[in-house]
C-alpha cells in the first residue's frame, strides 16, 4: 500500500514539472482593516491559471503578457485588476455577504445563489471528507432540511435509504436520482441476495475526491431532470485541478467503532429457566395438581409424557453455564481507517487533479469488513483558443465481506444475539467450537464467521469526457460529453458442509456476476447575452442514456473437502442462470435564465423525455418548470434598511416525473423461465398495460433567503407542496386473474411542509469565531385518490401492519390495539375496536384500526455548532427525527410469553416483569407452556422520536508560518466522534431508535458509534 502511494506521488510530481514557466507577479491581499487575507483565490482571467494567498496574504503567480487578475475570497466582493508593467500588485478586498455569492451547482447549470429561484442545498468538501464512513451519502444526514436518510444497515458499504420531502409514490421508486459530474448514474444495490448485506454503489466513490454535493428539492431545480426529478436529485461534483504549482494533500483517519446502541438486554439462562418452570406451572399446575415450587420436579418426572423440551435438564447437568451471545458476536472497537493522497496543479492551458485513496472498515459484528482502493484523474486542457477538453476518470475496487442479514436467519450473527439461547455454549470443554448442543437450529456464529462466505467484489470504472467549443459566434458555445460508468460485482456465497444452512446438502456454493454499463452522451449549445443590465442564459441540450446489465450465476452443492468454496469443487452443480436487461432514455432539454439588474430573475425549463419502460405510444413525456426570484435587498427603497444585507423572495412551479418501475411491465408477456421435468415451460409473466406512462408530480415552492445584521444572521424559509398525479401504482388485481398486480397510472397523493434554515455568526473575529445553525423540515403526506376496481370501489392496500386508504397517509400503521394484561388472569387483553372502550382476551375477536402515524418521520431537524479559537476548532452536529412510530421486530420470538422465548429461543430480559399472580399490574402477560402464532398489535409500535449527536470534531490547525519553515502548506489534526450520544423519546425502546426508513428493523447491523483520529497536511 505504502509503495503504491510513493509511486503515485512521484508520477504526479513528474507530471507537474512538464508544465511551462513564464513572468512572475507577486503581491499582497488585505481587507479594509489592513489584515492579511489568507487563501484568497487569484486567477488569470480567461485561463484556469491561479493560486491562493498564503498566511501573510501574499501570492506569487506566473503570467504571460498583461492579463487581468481576478481576486476572489468568500465573503468579499470579487475584484478584477488589469496588470501593468509592474511585477508587484497589492489589493484591498471589500467585504460582502457570504451565501449570496456562493456558486450553486445544479447539474445542468451552475448559478450564483442570488440567481437561484429554488432551494438547492449545497454541501462543500469540508463536510464530506475524513468521515469514518464508507459511503458519502451518509454525510447528508441532518445537514439538509427535508432530507431523511435512514440506516438500512450499519454493515460498511450498505445501501442507505433516502427520502426527500416525503414519500412521493406508493409503489414506484422513491429514491432520488444521483448525478455525478453532470451525468445521471444508476445507484441500484449491487448485492445479489436480499439475505446478504447490501452493496451501495456510492461506497465505490472516495469522498476525498468530492468537491460538493448539491441536493435539489424544488421544482425549478428538479424539473430539468424530467422523468426522474420527482424524488429529488443529488448532484455530486468531483474536484478539479487548481492553477498553480503542484499542491499535495495527504489525509489519514484512524478510528474505532462499536454499535451505537446495543439493543435489548436478553434473559440469562437462569432467568429463562425460572420462566420455564413458571410456564409449566401456569399451564399444567391446576389440571395436574402441583404447586409452583413443584413445577421443576413435575417437569423432570413427565418429560416424555408431556413432550417437554430437555433443554433445562441438560443445562443443569452441564453445570448451568451462561453465555452472553452479544459479546460473542461483537467485534469490539472495530477499526476504520483511510489514507488519501491527492495533487492539484495547473498552468494557463492545463490543470489537473489526481488522487489515490484507501479505505478499510471492519464491521462491529464478527466476520464482516469493507475495503476500497480508489484513484481518480481529472484533467482540463485548452486544445486551442476556442477548444477545451475535460476528462474525469476514476477507478475503484471494493471488497465487502458481508453477512446474512435483513431477516432472522439462523446463520446470521445478528440473529444469534436475539435467538440463540444463553444456555448454549460457544465452546466445548476441549476448546473446540460447540456445534452439537445449541438447543435450537440457530448456528454457532463463531463457526459461521470462520467458514461461511458472503463476499462482494465490486469494480467501478468511470470516464466522463467533455469537449467544449467557444463557437465563432460571440457568447455561443457547444459542449459534447461522453460518459461511461461500468459497475460490476463478482458476488460469491459459500455455506460450509459441517454446520449451517447447507449442512444437509454437503455445503453450498453460489456465484453471481453482475455487470452494468451506463452510457451517457450529451450535446449542448449555450448562449449568453449580457447587455444593459439584462443577462440571458440559454442552454439547449440533448441527452441519450443506455443502461445494459447482464448476470451470470451458478450454484452447486456436495463438497468433498473443506476450504474449497467455488462451484468448481461442488460434486453436484445444481443450477446455472444468465440474463440480459437493458433500458434507454432519450431527452431534449431547454433552459432559459433571465435576470435584470441583479434584482429580478426568471427562469424556465422544458424537457421532453422518452423511456423504454413505456409503450411506444406513450413513451415520451414533457416536463417543465418556471421560477422567479426577486432580490428585494437590491432595490433602492431598501437602501435605508442597513440591517438587511440580502433578502430574496423566490418561487417556482413545475412538473416532474417518475419512471421508477420494473422493466418491460407494459407488455403482456410470456416468460420461458420455468422448468418442468427438465423442459422449459411457458408462463404468463406480466399482465401488461398498453397505456402505461410517466408518473407526474406537480410541485410548487415559495420561499425566501435572507442575510441580516452584517450577515450575522442568515437563513431561508420554504413552503413546498408536491402533488403526485397519474401515480405509477402497482395496483392489486383480483388474484383470480392469475396476477397479483398491474402497473397503472392511477392515484393522487400530496406531500407538503415547510423548511427552515437559520445560521448565527455569534462571534466573528480574527482569533475567535462562534456560529450556530440549524435546519428543520416537516412533511405531511396524504393519499387523495387510489385505484378503483371495476365497481368503482377504492382498492385499498392492507398489509400485515399497515393500510393505505384515501384520506390517510401512505402505509399508516393499522393493527389491533393492546389493552395490557388482565390483572386477574394474566392474559393479554386487546381492544375490540378503535373506540378502545371494550377489551377481549381473544385476539381473533379484536379489530385492526388506524394508529395515526406511519413509519416515516414528519419532522426532521439538524443543529450545528462551530467554534474556533486561534488554531483550535470544534464542530458539532446533531439531528432530531420525530413524528413517526417504529415497529419492533420479531416480537413473537423475542418478547413472547410462551415457549418461543424462554424455551425454544432466547427472550428479552423485560419478560421478567411478567404477570405472576392475581393482582399483578404489568404489561407482560403470564408465561405459558404453549407456542402462540404470530400476533401483530400495537404493543410493539413505539414512538420513534430520537436525537442523535451525529458528529463532534475537535481539532487544531497548525500555524502556517511555522509550517512553511518545514515546507508544509497547512496541517490539521483532529479527533472526531460519530453518533456518540443517542436519546430516544421512548425510554423502554431498548433498540437503536434509528430504524429503517419504513419504520421496521430487520435485525441488520445497527448504526455505529465511532471515534476517529485524523490528520491532514498540504505541501
Amino acid at each position, binding site marked *: 500500500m505504502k509503495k503504491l502511494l510513493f509511486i503515485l506521488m512521484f508520477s504526479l510530481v513528474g507530471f507537474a514539472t512538464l508544465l511551462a514557466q513564464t513572468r512572475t507577479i507577486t503581491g499582497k491581499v488585505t481587507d479594509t482593516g489592513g489584515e492579511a487575507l489568507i487563501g484568497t483565490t487569484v486567477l488569470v482571467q480567461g485561463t484556469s491559471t491561479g493560486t491562493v494567498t498564503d498566511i501573510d496574504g501574499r501570492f506569487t503567480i506566473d503570467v504571460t503578457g498583461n492579463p487581468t487578475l481576478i481576486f476572489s475570497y468568500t465573503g468579499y466582493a470579487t475584484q478584477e485588476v488589469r496588470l501593468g508593467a509592474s511585477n508587484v500588485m497589492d489589493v484591498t478586498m471589500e467585504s460582502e455577504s457570504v451565501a449570496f455569492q456562493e456558486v450553486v451547482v445544479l447539474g445542468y447549470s451552475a448559478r450564483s445563489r442570488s440567481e437561484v429561484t429554488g432551494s438547492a442545498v449545497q454541501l462543500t468538501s469540508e463536510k464530506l471528507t475524513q468521515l469514518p464512513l464508507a459511503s458519502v451519502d451518509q454525510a447528508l444526514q441532518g445537514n439538509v432540511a427535508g432530507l431523511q436518510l435512514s440506516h438500512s444497515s450499519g454493515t460498511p458499504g450498505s445501501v442507505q435509504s433516502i427520502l426527500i420531502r416525503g414519500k412521493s409514490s406508493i409503489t414506484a421508486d422513491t429514491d432520488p436520482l444521483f448525478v455525478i459530474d453532470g451525468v445521471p448514474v444508476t445507484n441500484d444495490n449491487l448485492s445479489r441476495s436480499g439475505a446478504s448485506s447490501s452493496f451501495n454503489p456510492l461506497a465505490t466513490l472516495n469522498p476525498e475526491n468530492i468537491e460538493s454535493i448539491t441536493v435539489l428539492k424544488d421544482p425549478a431545480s428538479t424539473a430539468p431532470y424530467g422523468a426522474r426529478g420527482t424524488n429529488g436529485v443529488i448532484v455530486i461534483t468531483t474536484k478539479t485541478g487548481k492553477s498553480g504549482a503542484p499542491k499535495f494533500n495527504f489525509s489519514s483517519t484512524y478510528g474505532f467503532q462499536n454499535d451505537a446502541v446495543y439493543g435489548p438486554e436478553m434473559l440469562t439462562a437462569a432467568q429463562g429457566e425460572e420462566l420455564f418452570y413458571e410456564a409449566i406451572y401456569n399451564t399444567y399446575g391446576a389440571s395436574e395438581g402441583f404447586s409452583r415450587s413443584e413445577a421443576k420436579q413435575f417437569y423432570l418426572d413427565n418429560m416424555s409424557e408431556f413432550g417437554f423440551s430437555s433443554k433445562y435438564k441438560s443445562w443443569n447437568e452441564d453445570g448451568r453455564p451462561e453465555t452472553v451471545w452479544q459479546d460473542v458476536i461483537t467485534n469490539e472497537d472495530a477499526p476504520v481507517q483511510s489514507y488519501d493522497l491527492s495533487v492539484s496543479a495547473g498552468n494557463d492551458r492545463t490543470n489537473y487533479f489526481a488522487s489515490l485513496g484507501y479505505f478499510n472498515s471492519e464491521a462491529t459484528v464478527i466476520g464482516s469488513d469493507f475495503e476500497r482502493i480508489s484513484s481518480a484523474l481529472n484533467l482540463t486542457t485548452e486544445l486551442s483558443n476556442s477548444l477545451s477538453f475535460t476528462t474525469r476518470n476514476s477507478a475503484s475496487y471494493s471488497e465487502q465481506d458481508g453477512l446474512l442479514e435483513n431477516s432472522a436467519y439462523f446463520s446470521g450473527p445478528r440473529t444469534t444475539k436475539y435467538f440463540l439461547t444463553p444456555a448454549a455454549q460457544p465452546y466445548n470443554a476441549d476448546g473446540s467450537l460447540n456445534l452439537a448442543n445449541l438447543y435450537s437450529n440457530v448456528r454457532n456464529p463463531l463457526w459461521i464467521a470462520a467458514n461461511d462466505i458472503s463476499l462482494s467484489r465490486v469494480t467501478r470504472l468511470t470516464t466522463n469526457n467533455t469537449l467544449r467549443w467557444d463557437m465563432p459566434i460571440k457568447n455561443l458555445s457547444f459542449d459534447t460529453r461522453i460518459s461511461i460508468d461500468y459497475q460490476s460485482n463478482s458476488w460469491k456465497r459459500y455455506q460450509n458442509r459441517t454446520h449451517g444452512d447447507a449442512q*444437509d446438502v454437503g455445503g453450498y456454493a453460489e456465484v453471481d456476476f453482475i455487470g452494468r454499463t451506463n452510457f451517457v452522451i450529451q450535446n449542448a449549445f449555450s448562449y449568453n447575452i449580457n447587455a444593459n443590465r439584462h443577462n440571458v442564459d440559454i442552454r439547449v441540450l440533448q441527452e441519450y442514456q443506455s443502461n445494459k446489465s447482464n448476470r451470470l450465476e451458478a450454484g452447486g452443492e456436495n463438497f468433498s473437502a473443506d476450504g474449497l468454496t467455488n462451484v468448481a469443487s461442488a460434486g453436484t452443480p445444481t443450477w446455472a442462470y444468465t440474463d440480459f436487461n437493458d433500458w434507454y432514455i432519450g431527452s431534449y432539454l431547454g433552459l432559459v435564465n433571465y435576470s435584470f439588474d441583479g434584482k429580478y430573475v426568471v427562469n424556465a425549463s422544458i424537457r421532453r423525455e422518452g423511456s423504454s419502460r413505456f409503450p411506444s405510444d406513450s413513451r415520451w413525456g414533457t416536463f417543465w418548470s418556471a421560477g422567479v426570484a426577486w432580490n428585494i435587498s437590491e432595490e433602492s427603497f431598501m437602501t435605508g434598511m442597513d440591517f438587511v444585507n440580502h433578502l430574496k423572495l423566490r418561487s417556482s412551479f413545475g412538473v416532474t416525473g417518475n419512471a421508477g418501475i420494473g422493466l418491460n411491465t407494459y407488455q*403482456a*408477456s410470456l416468460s420461458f423461465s420455468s422448468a418442468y421435468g427438465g423442459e422449459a415451460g411457458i408462463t404468463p409473466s406480466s399482465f401488461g398495460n398498453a397505456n402505461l406512462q410517466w408518473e407526474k408530480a406537480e410541485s410548487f415552492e415559495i420561499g425566501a433567503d435572507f442575510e441580516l445584521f452584517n450577515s450575522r444572521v442568515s437563513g431561508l424559509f420554504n413552503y413546498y407542496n408536491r402533488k403526485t398525479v397519474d401515480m405509477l401504482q402497482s395496483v392489486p388485481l*383480483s388474484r383470480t386473474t*392469475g396476477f397479483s398486480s398491474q402497473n397503472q397510472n392511477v392515484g393522487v397523493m400530496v406531500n407538503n411542509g415547510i423548511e427552515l434554515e437559520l445560521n448565527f455568526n455569534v462571534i466573528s473575529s480574527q482569533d475567535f469565531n462562534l456560529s450556530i445553525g440549524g435546519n428543520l423540515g416537516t412533511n405531511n403526506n396524504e393519499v387523495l385518490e387510489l385505484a378503483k*376496481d371495476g365497481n368503482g*370501489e377504492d382498492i385499498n392496500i392492507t398489509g400485515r401492519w399497515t393500510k393505505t386508504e384515501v384520506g390517510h397517509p401512505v402505509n399508516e400503521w393499522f393493527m389491533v390495539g393492546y389493552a395490557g394484561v388482565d390483572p386477574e388472569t394474566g392474559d393479554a387483553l386487546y381492544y375490540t375496536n378503535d373506540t378502545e372502550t371494550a377489551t377481549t382476551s381473544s385476539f381473533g375477536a379484536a379489530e385492526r384500526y388506524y394508529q395515526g402515524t406511519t413509519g416515516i418521520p414528519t419532522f426532521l431537524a439538524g443543529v450545528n455548532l462551530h467554534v474556533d479559537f486561534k488554531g483550535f476548532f470544534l464542530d458539532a452536529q446533531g439531528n432530531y427525527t420525530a413524528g413517526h412510530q417504529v415497529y419492533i421486530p420479531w416480537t413473537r420470538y423475542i418478547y413472547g410469553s410462551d415457549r418461543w422465548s424462554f424455551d*425454544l429461543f432466547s427472550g428479552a430480559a423485560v419478560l421478567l416483569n411478567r404477570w405472576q399472580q392475581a393482582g399483578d399490574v404489568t404489561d407482560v402477560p403470564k408465561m405459558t407452556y404453549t407456542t402462540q402464532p404470530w400476533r401483530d398489535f400495537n404493543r410493539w409500535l413505539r414512538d420513534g422520536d430520537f436525537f442523535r449527536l451525529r458528529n463532534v470534531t475537535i481539532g487544531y490547525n497548525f500555524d502556517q508560518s511555522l509550517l512553511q519553515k518545514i515546507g508544509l502548506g497547512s496541517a490539521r489534526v483532529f479527533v472526531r466522534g460519530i453518533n456518540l450520544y443517542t436519546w430516544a423519546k421512548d425510554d423502554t425502546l431498548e433498540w437503536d431508535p434509528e430504524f429503517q426508513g419504513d419504520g421496521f428493523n430487520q435485525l441488520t447491523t445497527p448504526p455505529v458509534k465511532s471515534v476517529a483520529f485524523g490528520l491532514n497536511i498540504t505541501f
Partner: protein
Amino acid sequence: MKKLKNILLALGILFLGFSCSTEDLDPTLEQIKDISSIASVEDLSGLLKGTVDRMTDAGYYGQSFIITDEIRGDNVFPNGNSGRYQTQGSLEYIPSNNIGIWTDGYQVIASANIIINADPNELEGELNEILHIQGQAKIIRALVHFDLMRNYGQQYINGGNGLGVPIVTEFAGDDLLPARNTTNEVYAAIYADLQDAFDMMNDQYDNRANKTFPSKYTAKAIESRVAVYNAEWSRAQSAAQQVINSGLYTIIGADNYVSSFAIDNTDNSIFELAFDNVDNRGSNSLGFIYKGDVYGDIEVLPSTPEIYEESDVRAGIITVDANGKIRNSGKYPELNGYDNVNVIRYEEVILNLAEALFEQGDMAGAITQLNEITSNRGASEYSGSITKADILNERRKELLFEGFRFFDLSRNSMDIPKISDLQNITATITAGDHRYALPIPIVEMDANSNMVQNTGY
C-alpha cells in the same frame, strides 16, 4: 481553419448520430416474448409445462397445500423448530395471513385458460394433439377449482351461505372482478371440465411411462375424488370403475410400498408432479419440513403410529429420528424435494369406490375393495360388517401425510379432536366451525369488491 471545419463536421455528426427516435428506445427482450406469439402446438405444449410447473410451487403441491391440510388433522403437529405452520396448526388464521392456495391456484387456472381458449384452427400442428393438450389443461383447471373449493368454499361450515369460489374460464377476460359462484355451480363446472377433457383426449398421446402430465383417465380419477368429497356416490362409483376398468394401473405390493414413495412413475401413480434437482426446493420442500434437521417443523403425534397393526407395512413410513422425534420419513423422502409429488394414485380410487359402494348400501362390494388394499399391505382383511369409520381409518392409514385427513374429517362433519398437548389447537374444534373454511385472503378482499368474505372472519 481547416482543422476547425473538421471539428465542426465531427460535432455535427455526433449531434445527429445520437439524436434518438422512439424506436431507438425499444428495449431488447431476451428473456420474454409477447403473449401474441403463441402459434403452434409446440407453444401449447410449453404452456402446459408451465401450467403444471406452477402446481409444483412451494405454496401449492410443493409444500404448503399438503402441509396446511395435514397439519389441521390429528396426525401431526407443528413443533416450532422454525416457527412454520403455527398459524395453520392452531387454525387461528385471519384474512391478513393470506393463507392457502388462493394466489397459486388462480395462477395455474390463468395458465390453463390460455391453453383452453386458444383456437385450435389458428395453431400449427395436429388437431388431435392440440385437443389432447387442451383436455389436459381442462383436467388441471377442474382440479385446481376443486382444491380452491375444498379450502375456501363453505360446504363444510354451518351458517354459511353456500358460496363456493369464483369459476374463472378466461385469461385476461372481461370479468376481472368475479364474484363467488355457488357451491353447486362450482361442482357443475368441475364435472363439465372433466367430462370435456375425457372426451377430447386421445390416449395415444399419453405416455404410460411418464405420469407427470394428466392422462385421459386422470379425468375420471379426479372425478371420483370430487364426487366423494361432495357425497355424490353413484358418480363416484362410476368414475372410479372406469379408471379400474381401463386396466392401466395396479396397486403397489406390500414389499414395495415404502420404497415406492422414493420412485417416480410407479404403476400405482395416475398423475404426479415432476420435481428434480433443478427445482432445488431446499427448505421449501416437503422432505425438509417433514424431517429436515434445520426445519422439520412437522412432527408426528405419538398416537399416530398406533393406528397400524404390527404387520402393516405402512407403519414403515414412520420412524424415530436421532433426536427422538417421530417423523414421516417414508413419504417425500428426499430432503431437497427431488421426489415427484403424487396428485392422485390408484389406491385412492379404490378407496373412493369402496366408500361409494358402502354409502349406496353395497357392503360386500365395499369390503372387496378395502381388501384390495389390505391384502397388499400385510394388514388384516375386513369381513362381515364394516362401518364408515373403518373406511375412513383405512383411508387414514393409506393416505397418511398426503393431505387427506383434514378433509376426511370436514366432509363427514367430524370434529378436529384435541388429543394431545402437542397440538396447537387449545380445544377440540367442533364440526361446522367457521374455521373449516379458510378466510378469503385480504389481498383479494382489497382488490375485488365483488368478493364476499367467509362467515366468521
